[in-house]
């Protein structure tokens, strides 16, 4: 009966798909391709109401095979993609985007641009929310490519400008690219999301044309709009923009303070610490100490010699001046139960000494101040240092002897 036939057909379809899947997972591209040619038949009777229909399956598997098959070429791939675009209306934009991505990754920027323009002009009835977003993405990528063209023209102009020669046509063209890029880039960054690359390009355009207010507004929106994900890059871009604008230390510090609250382990925190340490205000110097202590809480900073030297310098200063020992005490209080095991174990002393002598020097200084000269880390490192007859380690030992009782005041 026809029902039975349908069932059998479904079964063999499923079996065929599972063979393809096995072949793909074992990287047997030729075998997968052979099975796929059989699977194409399933398109004929596509009654399925499943999540992913045969046409999407063919698109996905076919693409994967063409990516990896040893005998596939770009021409074939393009041809396949064009066919796939016609297979499903709902998927048209997605397939277009993927095609464009592939062209981009293969360096075929011009072809990608053509495809973007084509896809942008595509219209088919009402658009779903997803299609709407895909269309926005297509426009944004076109804007991005326009930006690259603009950038290219700009470089030509700048080079020529050095020669004292300007080309009006090139300039015109450049402004044209700017307009096209700006319109599209502006649109995408209105939608909540992570758009680092688009934001950067847009801000670059705006800055070139001197629209600093718009640029500042865009960056502020990107960093502070609560609808957007808490993206540390947004704050970094804002900070870099402010720095370029030559803003006051105060506004730079406040931008970094927010970054510190979001990501205390960010690389910029060392800059932040340096900036704060230079400050005349006591409050800021105290914040600086807190920033560097917090950074060193993170496993990623464990062997960050720069951070350790920042901490060592500041702690040493405080000890010598004998002022604000309570700052250290406050920071140390919440760490004294786990920092010794986390940073100052004998095992780490050995390893740090073997791998990075200056790191072990800075750490030994901090350990000596915080835990006293009898702590394992300091003892091991200073012993090794003196044995190796290194001058700074001998100085370190002397320094610790002079301030041997500081640790009691800190931990007491």
């Amino acid at each position, binding site marked *: 009966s026809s029902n039975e036939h349908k069932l059998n057909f479904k079964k063999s379809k499923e079996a065929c*798909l599972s063979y393809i899947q096995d072949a*793909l997972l074992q990287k047997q591209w*030729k075998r997968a391709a052979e099975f796929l040619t059989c699977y194409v038949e399933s398109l004929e009777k596509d009654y399925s109401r499943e999540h992913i229909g045969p046409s999407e399956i063919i698109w996905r598997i076919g*693409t994967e095979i063409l990516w990896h098959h040893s005998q596939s070429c770009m021409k074939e791939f393009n041809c396949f993609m064009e066919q796939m675009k016609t297979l499903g209306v709902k998927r048209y934009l997605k397939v277009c985007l993927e095609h464009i991505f592939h062209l981009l990754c293969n360096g075929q920027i011009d072809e990608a641009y053509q495809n973007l323009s084509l896809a942008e002009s595509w219209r088919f009835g009402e658009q779903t929310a997803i299609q709407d977003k895909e269309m926005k993405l297509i426009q944004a990528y076109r804007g991005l490519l326009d930006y690259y063209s603009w950038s290219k023209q700009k470089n030509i102009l700048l080079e020529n400008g050095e020669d004292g020669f300007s080309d009006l046509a090139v300039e015109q063209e450049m402004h044209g690219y700017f307009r096209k890029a700006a319109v599209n880039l502006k649109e995408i960054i209105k939608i909540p999301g992570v758009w*680092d*690359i688009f934001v950067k390009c847009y801000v670059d355009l705006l800055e070139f044309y001197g629209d600093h207010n718009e640029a500042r507004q865009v960056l502020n929106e990107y960093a502070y709009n609560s609808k957007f994900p808490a993206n540390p890059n947004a704050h970094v871009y804002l900070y870099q923009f402010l720095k370029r604008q030559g803003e006051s230390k105060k506004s730079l510090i406040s931008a970094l303070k927010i970054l510190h609250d979001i990501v205390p382990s960010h690389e910029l925190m060392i800059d932040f610490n340096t900036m704060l340490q230079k400050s005349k205000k006591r409050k800021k110097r105290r914040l600086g100490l807190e920033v560097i202590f917090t950074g060193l809480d993170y*496993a990623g900073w464990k062997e960050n010699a720069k951070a350790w030297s920042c901490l060592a310098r500041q702690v040493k200063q405080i000890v010598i001046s004998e002022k604000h020992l309570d700052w250290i005490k406050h920071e140390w209080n919440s760490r004294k139960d786990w920092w010794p095991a986390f940073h100052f174990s004998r095992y780490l002393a050995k390893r740090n000494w073997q791998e990075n002598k200056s790191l072990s020097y800075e750490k030994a200084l901090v350990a000596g101040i915080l835990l006293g000269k009898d702590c394992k880390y300091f003892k091991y490192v200073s012993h090794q240092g003196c044995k190796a007859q290194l001058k700074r380690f001998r100085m370190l030992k002397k320094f610790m002897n002079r301030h041997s009782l500081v640790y009691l005041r800190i931990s007491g």
Partner: protein
Amino acid sequence: PPREEGSPAPVAGWGEHGQVLEGSPGRRQVQPAFVPSRGAAGERWEAADAAAVPVLLPSAGCWFPSPTPQDIVYRSRACRKLRAGKSGATLDFAKQLGHFFVDHPEDAFGSLGRLLHKNFYLGNSKLKVTVSRNSTIRMTTLMEDIDRLEGRRGCPRQHLASRLRWFSHLCRDWLFEVPLGLLADCLHEELMQQWSSLLFDDSLTGGALAWLPLEDGGTPVGRLVHPGGQAMNHLYFQDVVLEELPRARGSPQQFELSGRVRQVAAARVDGQDFVGVRSDYHCGVWRVPGKTGAAPTPLQVIRTDMPASCLTVSPHLPGELSVCTQSGTIYLWSVETGLQQLRHDPQTMFFRDYSPWRWSDFTAHPRVLSCADRTGLQCLDARAPKRCHFDLFKVGEEAGCQQGERVVLPMYLGRAHPSQYLVTTQFSVYVLDERLPLVPVLKWAHMMKAPPLFAHLMPGKPGRNHKVLLGASRTQELLLLQYRVSFWGVSSGGSQSACQLAGTPQELHSIAGCLQHLPTQLPHRHHLLQQRLTAPAAGLAATLQEDGLHKSMLVFQLSEAGDVFCQRLTHKAAQPPAPPPRDEATTAPGSSPLFEAPDSSPQGLGTAALRYRHWLRAFSRACREPPRHTWLPSLSQRRLFTQRDLKGPAGPSSLQRQMRQRLRQTMQEGGRIQRWEPLALQPPPLPQTLEPAEGPDPLSTRLTAAWAGDWEQWWEERTSFSVAQRQRALRERRRRQKRAKGRRSLSASFTSSLTYQSELSELSDVGPQMLSPSRPPALSQEGSSPAGSPPRRSLWTSPAPEEALLSSQSLRCRGIPKERRKTLRDYLSVWAEGPPEPPEPLGSQASQLCIPSSQSQLSSA
């Protein structure tokens, strides 16, 4: 379990770049460069063998396979719907309750027995005259009554076994009611739990296998930590040498634990390994020095009231672990300072989900722990867990989750990147960065058939790919992924990393995959082997090994049966135009390169094949042991039956002897035996039918008559004939019935009276109604005379000299009292006269033969 509403699409992970990342940064560059977030070139790893190879020999003990859907569901058809989640699978409650009664009578009825203990006396001796005597029943008597009931089958006066009637009347209302309701509830609950754990068993999350690399001069050595034993409640630390195939060295360090090991977690801090072991109600931690020969030291054990669902070991601080229980509590456990409760919330975090599963792991900050349930992940600061927390991952729009998607396993990827996290769901795998929470830096649909419960990270050197292995339990799937952290962002200092999936995912051998390569087995052996090898996976571990130019990866997989299998993958240096790999043609199902002789091996077989030989031999030896689970109930029968009851007849009975002789004879003659009656019994005539047997069937005769035209006459004949025939038949049958009844009641009373004799005195307190009126009182008195009464079976075995038997002379010499001789003679004459009634009376004869009590008493009296 995570509900599987939209079943995982089998191809959702293929053919998609997802997005492009900015490649080599730099504004100066004329041509912009892009790299795909998926589809970049990956390292080539190829399996060295055709299948996974056993590392350890199977343990000697028997293995209990875990239940299959067929065990607890009505129809096997339902198991196809297993993945449909809420399918209408009907649990086979009645079968399971029946099994329970048989397998655990002590549990099913024990409590009742204890309740009734006072009123039932199980001893063999007489009841002493005590206060309790009136309220106590002697079980021996009751049992004998029940036995006797069998002998009385068909007896019209059967209901007169009043002691039983009395007993059942008293007990009928409550005997089954008391435990059954309670038991049924418990059993039903257990069945539901078993079923849901069959659909998805999250107690195994994390896996129970760990690999601890050791430092030992030149040879690469490591230590496998795995559970074993029949109940998987032994923990083994086994040293393993990594040669061509890993080989166990020495005997393992063994610890017996008080529960099934669910998870083994390990982390290395300051050159020492800390191994956390989780069973349902206990968690323990061991310290293992990173040198060979150093023995593991158990450090501490904690007990939980609710089953623990997670145990992870801190990669930052020695002796710190995090524990979660199913009540929604998360603890930071330090060996030095004890437990610190961080959170207690039976509700899930982001939306309502009924699963009590919780998970916790460490993050880049040693004081900040992640905690997870099925709906997402949060990070808590242990110093102020109530105030300081942030959401790391949420099942929802930000991560682009599907409907019904649930978190299956989170894992801290600290060894690859200090701020990255892996989260797997039943559909996808995500890499998250705690600096950019909620938005995954990598997402990929993994297309696995079962949710990945195990994951293992092998960090690559800077600039190289990190490798992640995902493992599923039920389907034993193993998937190898490669990813790399690429920097998206321009200027130094402002880089936010994004991830790139490198290469295509690669499926590795599962344990069951070796079945097709093994030599052909006998069907039942094959079945056992299949059962063993397809047991759900229970853990996953791997290690990278590098000697000179050769890099290889060893992947260990543990099954629920306690088997550890291993496979080696070798790294192939990237050759830009990849030559056609050998896998295209060779590994078709059915071929077995495993057992083919490789050219290089002088012994003829590869190491893998030899390893299999050993394993198979040990496995079949373990199988041959008598299955221990069919233990006999340890109830003593001696208290219920007398010594004489238990003593069976010595040697073959004369009937048996006779039968054997007949069989031998017939075989010599080459004839055949139609019926198994003793020779003395004439083969009974076939039961007469009411229709005449001769001629064709009535329909055809009638049709023939009708065709011939004399149908009327035929009818006349038939009616008259059949009436006469029927009358005759009825008369005959009544006569037979009468005869049978007389004989049967006689024989029944005969046996029963004989069994009564030994205990008649004890019955005196029961009351006069117990004495059956059908039983002649004379017999009861005479029966106790010890004058060697002949074995009853002699009636059957030597019936030939009937006259001799029936003569009063012979009866007397057999010790039959005078009063009974007539009855007996009547009885025997009836017996000798007509053929016994087929077939029902034959059955009753047989049952008489089988009554042990009357037989043995007769023979020994």
